[in-house]
């Protein structure tokens, strides 16, 4: 059994018209036993930048602490927020630092860059970046998510439609994965607001 599937997770980020959505499930388990049903895997770095950390829960939290720390140092030095592209490179570098004793996390990064262009990206657990134009997925439900997103995605969606599509894709996918589920957590980020929603889902 893979260490990446020890706790179970499902994360998806999708691009819309001048906006993006990032969503995750809420389950934390130990193999097949559910331990918590309100677990957070998506973290806010600043108003227009979010990171989702799939994989091992403890490494996700440790990694998040390091990322916040590095982002705060950046803010103090530069007196501005990090661009998503820069942040992705930072995450990649931090992961590769631990090339031979890695964090067992697959991150998903989503943000609004200059002139509010949406940016999404994922990488493997040692920092190999993959930039995508449409959507990225991660976690133990990633295969289901690929299928669902590939079928439901269309380009240039408005925030409301994007929210619906991502929610449907997430809930459909986690119902076919034993290790993720128990509802979802979704952020829809537009240039002037962040909408946060808690989704109810099957409790098995």
């Amino acid at each position: 059994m893979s260490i990446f599937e020890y706790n179970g997770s499902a994360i998806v980020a999708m691009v819309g018209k001048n906006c993006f959505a990032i969503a995750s499930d809420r389950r934390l388990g130990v193999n097949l036993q559910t331990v918590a049903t309100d677990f957070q895997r998506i973290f806010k770095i600043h108003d227009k930048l979010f990171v989702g950390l799939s994989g091992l829960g403890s490494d996700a939290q440790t990694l998040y602490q390091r990322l916040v720390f590095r982002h705060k140092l950046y803010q103090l030095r530069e007196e501005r927020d990090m661009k998503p592209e820069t942040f992705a490179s930072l995450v990649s570098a931090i992961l590769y630092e631990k090339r031979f004793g890695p964090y067992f996390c697959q991150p998903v990064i989503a943000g609004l860059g200059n002139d509010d262009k949406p940016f999404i990206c994922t990488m493997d657990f040692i920092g190999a970046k993959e930039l995508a134009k449409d959507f990225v997925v991660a976690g133990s439900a990633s295969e289901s998510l690929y299928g669902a997103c590939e079928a439901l995605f269309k380009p240039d969606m408005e925030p409301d439609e994007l929210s619906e599509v991502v929610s449907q894709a997430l809930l459909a996918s986690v119902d076919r994965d034993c290790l993720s589920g128990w509802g979802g957590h979704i952020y829809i980020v537009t240039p002037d607001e962040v909408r946060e929603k808690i989704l109810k889902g099957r409790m098995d």
Partner: protein
Amino acid sequence: MTKQQARFEPYDFNGGTCVAIAGADYCVVAADTRMSTGYNILTRDYSKIYKLADKCMMASSGFQADVRALQKVLGAKHLIYQHQHNKQMSCPAMARLLSNTLYYKRFFPYYTFNVLAGFDEEGKGCVYTYDAVGSYEKVGYSAQGSGAKLIMPVLDNQLKSPSPLLLPAQDAVTPLSESEAIDVVKDVFASATERDIYTGDKLEIVILNVDGIRREYAELRKD
């Protein structure tokens, strides 16, 4: 260093994806026509759908040599059945026969993943889905093979029929019309082909309804 020797490997995996959907008065069975081994494509035009009886089709992915052997065994058993009973086997009977045939080889299994589709005694569409050793279930729709994990959540979401995940089990024929069901099948295969290297080339769709059996083909990505 211990001595190494060449060993006989009885199994291969040829990939492929099968989907079946049951409606009130029709059935749709679909499979891609790619046959692969490892990173190689053996052929782009290989049918995975087999007619077992007048109102009963089987789609199989996995190891195609085992699939052919299984089809031959079922064909032979059905021929004997026809001689003894002077009629075609019903789909539920064929479903149990397939299960028993698979379980008969429990300790040297047919490496095949099957879906069976046809009509039940009442003339309603029915789908049976299997594992490699004969465990089976009657469902309203199913996907098997290399792209099943990508397709199944989409079917759950789009077919609007009670999901097989719901308990207690419900009669789960889709309320969709025949042409809508065919469109869904084309869409899910197009999606699976984007991400699954073992699915692609061409889609073979077999439609069973009151008029009989009809075949359709649709193109899929060839990379």
